[in-house]
């Protein structure tokens, strides 16, 4: 079987800082994979490489067998890879619903300069998606009025609205309070299962990784130092030392 995402020998340096070295990752259709590692261990860099935001110094990335070398984030997105961000990337000058409508318009590929953005099928679907994320009440408010947690959710909702085959999430629960974390993740996982979206997510919170991923990759200074089930991997003393700084 061809892997949905297969990265081989990815290497990326920023000056002398190693962000990725001989990084190889394989993710199959239907998986939910967590990535852990301390700050600066190369997690976000990996997402940036996988989505074409950065070009690797060496190595290659295959998407369902197709080489994505030289493709821009836009083209990779159009191949079915969506992404959410550590710091929500939103259109602060537009309303929450408009943010969502733009995602739906982009998915349809029908830009157009005459028919309005507000059109029934999109507004209906947009509101539905917002509702599932509990953002319905903010639909006609500007994004600037959304609280931080809401921005984070909208950021992910915009990616999911694209109906991707593969979703990459960068710290989906960062900035979400401890009490709400699991609720947020439950909502997310529900939507992802329903849409049968293969997911890779970067996460700081070990409990979240434990609970929601079947497989976890541990990054340390640009290397994958462990790959396996959360129970075994996260119990490993070296891993704990690398990620948490103590065994």
């Amino acid at each position, binding site marked *: 079987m061809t892997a949905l995402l297969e990265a081989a020998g990815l290497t990326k340096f920023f*000056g002398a*800082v190693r962000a990725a070295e001989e990084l190889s990752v394989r993710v199959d259709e239907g998986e939910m994979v967590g990535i852990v590692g301390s700050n600066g261990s190369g997690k976000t860099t990996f997402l940036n490489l996988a989505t074409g935001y950065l070009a690797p110094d060496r190595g290659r990335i295959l998407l369902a067998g197709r080489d994505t070398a030289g493709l821009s984030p836009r083209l990779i997105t159009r191949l079915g890879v969506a992404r959410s961000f550590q710091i929500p990337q939103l259109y602060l000058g537009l309303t929450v619903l408009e943010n969502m409508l733009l995602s739906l318009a982009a998915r349809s590929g029908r830009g157009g300069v005459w028919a309005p953005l507000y059109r029934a099928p999109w507004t209906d679907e947009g509101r539905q998606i917002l509702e599932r994320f509990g953002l319905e009440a903010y639909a006609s408010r500007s994004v*600037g009025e959304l609280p931080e947690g809401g921005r984070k959710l909208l950021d992910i909702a915009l990616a999911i609205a694209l109906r991707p085959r593969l979703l990459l999430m960068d710290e989906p629960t960062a900035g979400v309070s401890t009490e709400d974390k699991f609720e947020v993740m439950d909502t997310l996982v529900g939507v992802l299962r329903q849409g049968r979206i293969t997911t890779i997510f970067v996460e700081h919170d070990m409990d979240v990784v434990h609970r929601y991923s079947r497989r976890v990759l541990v990054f340390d200074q640009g290397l994958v130092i462990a790959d396996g089930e959360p129970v075994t991997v996260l119990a490993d003393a070296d891993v704990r030392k690398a990620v948490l*700084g103590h065994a």
Partner: protein
Amino acid sequence: MPDMLSVEGVWVGIKGVVVLRGIGFAVPPGGLVALVGRNGAGKTTTLKSVMGLLPLSDGRISVDGVDLARVPAYRRATLGIGYVPEDRRLIGPLTVADNLLLPAWAGGLARPSERLEWVYCLMPDVRSLAGRRAAQLSGGQQKMVALARALMSGTRLLLLDEPFEGLSPGLGDKLAATIRQVQREGLSVLLAESDVKRVAFVQETYTIERGEIARPAS
């Protein structure tokens, strides 16, 4: 005797979002205090506010009894505050030695060469890097140089943002030892950290959650 750093009822917003909700805590003279909280809890914002990189919408920050409200950002270094940002932020095109000497050239440092020598003695690894360009260093090395740079101006108070992040365990231990040593030499230290277990060596810990001090523990 006033606290070396005192933060009282500070509110700060970034891009329309309230990040700090009336936080308050203090670092006593010669104290070693940790601010512990998850990513996004407001640790970095707190340190940046002390350094004057973010405006307060309410509250008061003072260093050794001096209200910082009337001290512009660039004058705070001359109060003897050193700051190590989370992402190192060395001046890449300059050498390590130049990076260390920048606070001296900015005009706020008495006897820079003595101070430099003191820093080099404290951190011999940094001395051996002196001639290299900052951009050419590895992440761990940059982290150490950033600390060294903060020690140049930080004669009284040191603010460290996630100093252990991305360091190998060995380097982390070295760093912790250095921090304790400068504290013994009289500096007050405030460090922000996401993992409470890594700051077992500090005297006092404040937990910050969603922009509020959850519980002052010790």
